[in-house]
């Protein structure tokens, strides 16, 4: 390598070479010794002696400063060579593409099957519920889910208006007897939409458990990137595959059990993405599946909702504690709710007892989502 050889030759007394630092150190020592020993010879009166003293003092200062500069430069490497120091290096380089092929990022929703949502006794209700598989480009996760699109949803219709989204985090999506079952909750949403109590929304059901161990929807250090999936992949997937809103004010999280914990955690961590969280009344004093990050006390602390609410600023969130059971009041969530300071708001509601236990929750979400007129104005 011709260039390399040249540089090596130049480096024999290069700016960053040990030889230069050693030479300067020797110079400083010799000058110091000479000055101290020859002090008396320069102590005479007259301009000549004063000039000699000035010269001696300045020479010493200059050599010491040079040594300091060279040492500082060696440790921090501001200037790599003499030409660099005096600004003689010129000329740019060329921008080269290393990886020139652009492919689709891999965010995708595969629809496996589709069924209509019908609500007996409510003829206007409708929409459909798809069994889907979601591919998250950033997390690399592929997760089974259900996607509810409301009655009248058509891609790009509605004057470009985008729909609010409720991400339902539950392991019960396939369980028709659970209030969080996809069919039941989609039915409830459909009925509330038909009744004008909820604006048309998109529901996405995803499991709280993305891997064998439940990591509470967080990024498992060096492992499953749960938070990346929920907070980055899901919004992107729904914004590209269906007409999901791009505004945090229109994104809600709703979960049961560990999914409830997920909802609160994700909303607190990513208030630029989500602004509404619904979780069961529970105490939330420790994360589910805490074993995942047990190795690091700091990570465990960070993942604790109580700690987070006490130590980080309050987020612009609306939080609802809902059920289980029909009783109202905060119950065991009292401790957590007490830590919520504005702009975070906390409320509670009991579940309904009829066919749609989560109807009161949907009504509350409907009241919390910004009105469509307000959104249109804000967009303009």
């Amino acid at each position, binding site marked *: 390598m011709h260039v390399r050889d040249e540089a090596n030759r130049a480096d024999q007394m290069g700016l960053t070479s040990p030889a230069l630092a050693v030479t300067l150190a020797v110079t400083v020592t010799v000058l110091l010794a000479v000055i101290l020993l020859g002090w008396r010879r320069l102590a005479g009166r007259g301009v000549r002696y004063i000039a000699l003293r000035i010269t001696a003092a300045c020479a010493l200062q200059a050599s010491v400063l040079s040594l300091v500069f060279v040492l500082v430069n060696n440790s921090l490497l501001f200037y*790599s*060579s003499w030409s660099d120091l005096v600004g003689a290096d010129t000329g740019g380089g060329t921008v*080269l593409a290393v990886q020139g092929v652009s492919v689709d990022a891999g965010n995708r929703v595969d629809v496996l099957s589709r069924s209509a949502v019908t609500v007996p006794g409510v003829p206007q209700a409708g929409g459909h519920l798809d069994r889907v598989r979601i591919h998250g*480009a*950033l997390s690399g996760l592929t997760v089974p889910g259900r996607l509810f699109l409301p009655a009248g949803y058509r891609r790009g219709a509605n004057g470009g208006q985008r729909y609010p989204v409720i991400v339902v985090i539950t392991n019960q999506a396939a369980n028709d007897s659970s209030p969080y079952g996809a069919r039941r909750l989609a039915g409830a949403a459909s009925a509330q939409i038909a009744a004008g109590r909820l604006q048309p929304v998109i529901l996405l059901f995803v499991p709280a458990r993305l891997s064998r161990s439940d990591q509470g929807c967080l990024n498992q250090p060096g492992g499953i990137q749960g938070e990346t999936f929920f907070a980055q992949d899901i919004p992107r997937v729904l914004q590209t595959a269906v007409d999901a809103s791009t505004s945090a004010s229109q994104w809600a999280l709703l979960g049961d059990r560990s999914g409830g914990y997920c909802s609160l955690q994700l909303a607190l961590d990513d208030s630029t993405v989500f602004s509404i969280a619904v979780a069961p009344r529970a105490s939330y004093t420790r994360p589910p599946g805490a074993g995942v990050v047990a190795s690091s006390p700091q990570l465990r602390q960070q993942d604790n909702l109580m700690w987070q609410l006490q130590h980080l600023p309050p987020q612009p969130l609306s939080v609802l504690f809902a059920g289980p059971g029909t009783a109202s009041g905060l119950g065991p969530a009292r401790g957590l709710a007490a830590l919520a300071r504005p*702009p975070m708001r906390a409320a509670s509601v009991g579940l309904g007892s009829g066919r749609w236990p989560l109807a009161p929750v949907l009504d509350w979400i409907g009241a919390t989502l910004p009105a469509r007129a307000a959104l249109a104005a804000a967009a303009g």
Partner: protein
Amino acid sequence: MGLDSGLFEIIMVVAAAASLAVVVWLWPKAAGQHAAHLAARLGLIAGSQLLVIVTFLICLNGYFGFYGSWAQLLGGTSPSTVAAAAARPGAAGGPSDGQVRSLVVNMTEPGPVPGGQVLPAEAPRYAAAGPGLHRRRVTVHGQPQYGPVAGSGVPGLSGLSKRVSTSPAVVGRLLMVSMTGQQTGITARGAYVYLPPQYFQRAYAHARFPAVLALTGYPGASWSIVKRLGLPSEAARLVAAGRMPPAIYVMMNVSVVMPRDTECTNVPAGPQVESFFAQDVPRAIEQSFRVQRLGSAWGLIGYSTGGYCAAKLAMLNPYQFHSAVSLAGYYVALRDNTTGNLYGGSLGYRHENDLDWRLAHLPAPPISLLVTSSKIGEKTYPGTMAFLRLVHSPMQGYSLILAQGGHNFGSWQRELPQSLTWLGRRLRPAVPNQAQVLLHS
């Protein structure tokens, strides 16, 4: 007295010169044979030497802008993790959506004139400035190349200083701002926002502009990006030459909790610096300026530690930051005396902050990244080449390698025009005369 204030530097230089004079003056008095005389000689030399070295280091610090204040150098007033004092409800001037306005403009200056000097030449540096709005007259050499020159002297008198318009529609505006993160509670003072002239022109009155976040190295000061790197002036020059679209530049110190070097990491149970840059800063800027909305592909550029941060922030938040330039950055997760324990003692979490590890173990993010280094003179060169070999689709890697150049502003200035042109091609340009209704996306 501020560590970086000009007055302090002058006082130190005077003191150092005086100490030399004292040595020369007292020289004969220490010329005896006694041990006391020898001690006096040593004392004179050492005292003077110390003053000169300290002065030199202070001037060096002033030039490179490592530490902006005594507090930054020594610690003490660095904000605790628990900076919950941040977003208070009902703060004055809060926007109607209930969110708290988290950006305060401390000062306004005319922007740099394309083709002119880096202006404003004498703008006060970071910590020295108090609140309030100041305007200064600006004098430049040479002919401005862009925009109408209103109120200027006789054109064509090259070589003579003359006044040019400082109207925002001609030179843009350079604002010094403070930002408080709603998500993290971190407060960054002395950040700079450059608004291009177009921002103030009628044709762009309703246009939203692309944004670029620029980060210093560690330790550093945001003012260095304006003055030493000359980012706003280079951008203004390239825009005037039609080589890149006008954009808003947000220029920040990479270390928001000085003197700690956080490497833009969400430190477990500590400062959430990644979230601050990836969520809080875009949100604060979006609330305050006509910038393209959250998640709309901002650009990133940074040098040294700021280069690592630019690459990391884009790789971790590819929908917020679509393209990034890492000038002489590195790509591994550092741990040293200035960082402390950034990863909560978790190897897995440290891996997640190691960009080499991420490319080898996680899906590549859909971003474009330009990395720069020098074949000779840069310690970062081997690491940069190793990182580039790991880049794969959908991530797109680009390199800009100088034949020779050190880890300093001189090299980065040489890389800047091409880097900005590259970045400019990846920004969504602001559209003039845009009807409001088209803005909705």
